[in-house]
């Protein structure tokens, strides 16, 4: 039996000064203990607003949120003892050293510097002796990760955690997240980088314009019902017309190679090419980026959302 670490019900918050513009609208969300949960959406979707509501930095206009079964407003202090947070835009006192900030944060938590801190410093190859103002963006993110992870909290809330990290450190970050999960910790990871979510999350929610569009397992999220098929024939087949075949779209012929997008079952396609000698057939699943765009595309048609043009994906 699973236990919800984060649970929100109808969480709503509007932008200041914009009565009709919701930063978050009726959010119902559940994050289970021990999972790595991706919170996906383009910039301005309401991801950071959700996090600030969970941390009790801002207050909802309606709805409520619970963490560890405790109300985020009434039991904020108790909750904050048990979480680690990395903001999307990390700012710290520029004239202090990394080491000083680590010591200060530990002291405010009422604990000595945890032993795990040194492990993190080594694995992230971070130099804590320098002043904050001397750190590059990547090093500041490393420090932010250390501050969030060092006390091994039950819940990690990470807002765009790999922003500014080089690929090697991103890899280390992913290992750290897996280790945290194996350690029984829960991770709530906000991101607009779909490949990041795809690589480490168990489940993900998609948010847009303050509304939750979907919450699914990563594999379920990928299950859009279409795939890319590339056929390589032995001989040219000028008479072969696949455009009318059920589920087949975007047919492109390049010599002996035929590329298409297939929705649904393979059977209609296989029947249509019956008699042709197929040298090779490649089937490629769509990337999460494509799924994301497809998903938003569907919502644009069905949900009547305002078009924002290209969704920011990487």
């Amino acid at each position, binding site marked *: 039996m699973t236990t919800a670490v984060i649970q929100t019900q109808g969480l709503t918050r509007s932008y*200041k000064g914009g009565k009709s513009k919701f930063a978050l609208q009726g959010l119902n969300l559940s994050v289970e203990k021990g999972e790595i949960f991706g919170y996906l959406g383009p910039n301005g979707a309401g991801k950071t*607003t959700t996090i*600030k509501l969970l*941390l009790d*930095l*801002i*207050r909802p206009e309606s709805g409520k949120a619970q963490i560890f079964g405790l109300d985020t407003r009434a039991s904020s*202090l*108790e909750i*904050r*003892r048990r*979480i*680690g*947070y*990395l*903001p999307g*835009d*990390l*700012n*710290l*006192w520029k004239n202090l050293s990394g080491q000083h900030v680590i010591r*200060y*944060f530990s*002291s*405010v*938590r*009422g604990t000595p510097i945890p032993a795990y801190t040194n492990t993190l410093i080594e694995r992230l190859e971070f130099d804590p002796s320098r002043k904050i103002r001397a750190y590059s963006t990547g090093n500041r993110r490393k420090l*932010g990760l250390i*501050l969030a992870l060092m006390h091994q909290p039950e819940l990690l*809330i990470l807002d765009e955690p790999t922003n500014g990290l080089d690929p090697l450190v991103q890899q280390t970050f992913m290992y750290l997240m897996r280790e945290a999960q194996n350690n029984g910790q829960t991770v709530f990871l906000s991101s607009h980088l779909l490949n990041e979510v795809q690589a480490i999350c168990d489940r993900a929610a998609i948010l847009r314009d303050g509304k939750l569009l979907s919450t699914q397992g990563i594999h379920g999220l990928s299950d859009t019902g279409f795939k890319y098929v590339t056929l390589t024939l032995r001989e040219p087949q000028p008479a072969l017309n696949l455009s009318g075949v059920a589920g087949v779209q975007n047919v492109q012929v390049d010599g002996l190679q035929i590329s298409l997008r297939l929705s649904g079952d393979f059977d209609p396609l296989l029947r249509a090419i019956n008699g042709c000698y197929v040298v090779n057939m490649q089937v490629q699943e769509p990337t999460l980026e494509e799924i994301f765009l497809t998903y938003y595309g569907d919502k644009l048609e069905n949900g009547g959302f305002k078009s924002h043009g290209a969704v920011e994906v990487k």
Partner: protein
Amino acid sequence: MINTIFAETFRRGWKTALYWGLGIGIMAWLQIIIVQDTTLITETAHLMESVPPFILEMFGGTSDMQFLATPDGYLALQFFGFILLVFAFYAAVAGLNVTANDEDAGIMDIFLSLPVVRWQLVLTKVLAFILLSALVVGVTLACMLIGFAMVPNIFDVGRMVLASLNILPSMLVVLSFTALAAAIFRRKSSAIALTAAFIIGSYTLDFLGNAAPDTILAALRKLSFFAYYDSTGVIQNGLSIPNVIILLAASVIFAIIAMWRYQRRDIGL
């Protein structure tokens, strides 16, 4: 948690407070040393006779020319009369450090993700800055005492010490008011504007009320914290306990409202 924040605030602020105290203290020390030149005091007093009383009040002076012609009177006019404005500036800067600067720099988001109670944060930092304000006054007083030792038997040192300590309650008013302004507004610029209006408004109200004793301004003057500072009165008559109590009460009220407000309002966004 409270001890840590208090110690960290003091650790980060003591050097600045020391420099402020030294800067103001050297200014005071120079005025004390100059007093040996009795001609200067006499000439200053004569000069003041030709100045309209409301201008004298503007600079915190008094129209009592006999008093102005004494070393104590000279220091009351040339130092204590206007120096509260300088101390108030330090107190305003300190008040912005309670929450506004960290919030404006985007640091408060991560800091308040720690197990910190917001009202306790405000209280702890206000207390730390009270100690730092006392340090500024203390260092200034130390410089003055060195001056008094160099020109013995000229000043009523006891009264001068009281006049120096009399600065502190007014500083606390400005400090807690600035903390309140920062608790009300999320924008630092708004907090600065409100604090500036408070200090300049209080100063203006005080000297206009003094200059026009038969008008409503004289009654409104009671709303200004400068009215309870009364440096000349302290040097002539000793510390006014009611004035000190009023200033301390105002400080406590401002600080309590600041804590209440900061506990409830949104951070950042």
